[in-house]
């Protein structure tokens, strides 16, 4: 993989921040966008912008073709069986909320259980908390091992015949843990539970085949995989989606409307009330083309090599604590002894290095880690070894600076 050529596709990377060349290590928050995506959105607005599925004019037809073409592109990308299994949403959060509000409210009672883990992002905890409160269902957590992984044994023990939903992240946004989705799905299905996967940190970085994973729902965001913000996807198995009620009502999603009653369009449109995220979908399709051309397997390999190199380098810094398992996806969460992560991130920022500092929308996990906050460096296809060298230098500087002032 030619990282220099890839970097040249990302205009934002070519700038100085605080007088130093930008090192962007916050892709787990949002990825940068290649010019191919920016240009696709630009081209859509300049040439084809119209509302979809209505009217008979020519550019309206073009917009509809692009929007529905994007849906088919997503289907291919994740190897779903049917195009109508792809619902465009605002992002992962709204995709998970859709499942909780529609499938969850219709199918759960106080006799049932929802199983999740303590490593989830807030977006995969709170919808289930709310569902548990509304239905009386019980929320259960698969215990974490000391390194932040799950064991099959604990998964088997936690999922029971009362479990109706298993909600789990593909990749932890803090620990980098990659969960064994296929194995979890197999166990859940033996108990007739459905599996909802938070794929926000999974699909940008590895080949995802929903048919192979056999999960019932897979939710993800475009903006973490080189697409614009404001577009995401809920993949769901047709048998579930067809039985589910919409959660948003209004234009675009209806079949017939009478004064006192209405009927819905068929899949997938019954879940896409209002004017859909047309430009976002166009951008997502362009991002998928881009990632496919680079090759997801190449991206995974590149990130694995970067993480290995980063771990080797970072462990040479005395007083740097790293959280999470040895085998991990392309991110590293850490703390410098006696330096608050905000302060670390401010020093790094003064060196032109962007990292995340805070609780990463995972407060229950922070509690488990016994940390109030952490710093996180996350990698993507455009990062290089020299970015990691800069990070290591920056961290040494932070140590020196706070060592000096104390």
């Amino acid at each position: 993989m030619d990282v220099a050529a890839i970097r040249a596709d990302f205009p934002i990377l070519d700038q100085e921040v605080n007088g130093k060349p930008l090192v962007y290590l916050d892709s787990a928050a949002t990825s940068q966008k290649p010019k191919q995506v920016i240009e696709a959105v630009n081209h859509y607005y300049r040439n084809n912008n119209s509302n979809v599925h209505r009217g008979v004019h020519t550019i309206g037809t073009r917009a509809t073709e692009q929007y529905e073409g994007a849906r088919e592109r997503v289907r291919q990308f994740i190897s779903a069986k049917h195009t109508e299994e792809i619902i465009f949403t605002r992002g992962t959060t709204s995709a998970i909320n859709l499942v909780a509000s529609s499938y969850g409210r219709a199918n759960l009672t106080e006799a049932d259980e929802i199983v999740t883990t303590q490593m989830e992002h807030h977006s995969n905890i709170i919808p289930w908390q709310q569902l548990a409160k509304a239905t009386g269902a019980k929320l259960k957590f698969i215990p974490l091992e000391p390194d932040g992984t799950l064991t099959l044994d604990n998964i088997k023990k936690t999922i029971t015949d009362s479990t109706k939903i298993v909600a789990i992240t593909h990749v932890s946004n803090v620990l980098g843990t990659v969960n064994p989705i296929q194995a979890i799905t197999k166990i859940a299905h033996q108990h007739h539970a459905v599996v909802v996967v938070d794929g926000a940190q999974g699909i940008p970085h590895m080949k995802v085949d929903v048919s192979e994973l056999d999960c019932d729902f897979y939710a993800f965001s475009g903006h973490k995989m080189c697409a614009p913000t404001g577009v995401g996807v809920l993949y769901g198995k047709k048998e579930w989606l067809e039985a589910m009620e919409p959660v948003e009502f209004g234009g675009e999603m209806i079949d017939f409307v009478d004064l006192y009653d209405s009927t819905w369009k068929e899949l997938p449109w019954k879940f896409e009330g209002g004017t859909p995220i047309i430009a976002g979908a166009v951008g997502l399709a362009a991002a998928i083309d881009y990632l496919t051309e680079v090759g997801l397997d190449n991206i995974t390999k590149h990130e694995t090599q970067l993480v290995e190199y980063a771990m080797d380098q970072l462990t040479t810094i005395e007083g740097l604590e790293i959280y999470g398992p040895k085998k991990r996806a392309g991110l590293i969460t850490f703390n410098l002894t006696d330096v608050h992560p905000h302060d670390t991130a401010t020093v790094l920022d003064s060196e032109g290095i962007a990292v995340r500092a805070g609780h990463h929308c995972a407060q229950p996990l922070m509690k488990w880690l016994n940390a109030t906050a952490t710093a996180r460096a996350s990698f993507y296809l455009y990062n290089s070894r020299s970015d990691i060298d800069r990070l290591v230098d920056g961290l040494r500087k932070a140590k020196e600076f706070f060592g000096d002032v104390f």
Partner: protein
Amino acid sequence: MSFNNLDNLYRQVIMDHYKNPRNHGSLSNGALTLEMNNPTCGDRIQLHLLIEDGIVNDVKFEGEGCSISLASASMMTQVIKGQEVETALKLSQYFSDMMLGKDVDPADLELGDIEALQGVAKFPARIKCATLAWKAMEKAVDQNEQP
């Protein structure tokens, strides 16, 4: 190694308050207690205020956070202790203006160490850290006045 830009943010006096916080701890016996979080970053301050006859007779704080938020809390407790509530609120307004980079005349306000935080105004991402304790104080006073 030169840290000019950072030195402007992390002044010696700030680091001193961070490492040796003044008025750290809790109060009982009729003190108001107010907890405030910065939900985006996880900073948490618990402020205890003993207000009697319109005077901040005692104040202490506990919490977790970065150097800027804890130093700011420490400095705030120092300057508002023993002051009239009205003066404490004026100081809070002054501090807030200072964070916005406004050049305001402090008139007869005794500023103590809080001017050392002036540099934070140039780091927009850190302003919320610096104002957390002040926001907590304002809210506590507000609750005290409208029981």
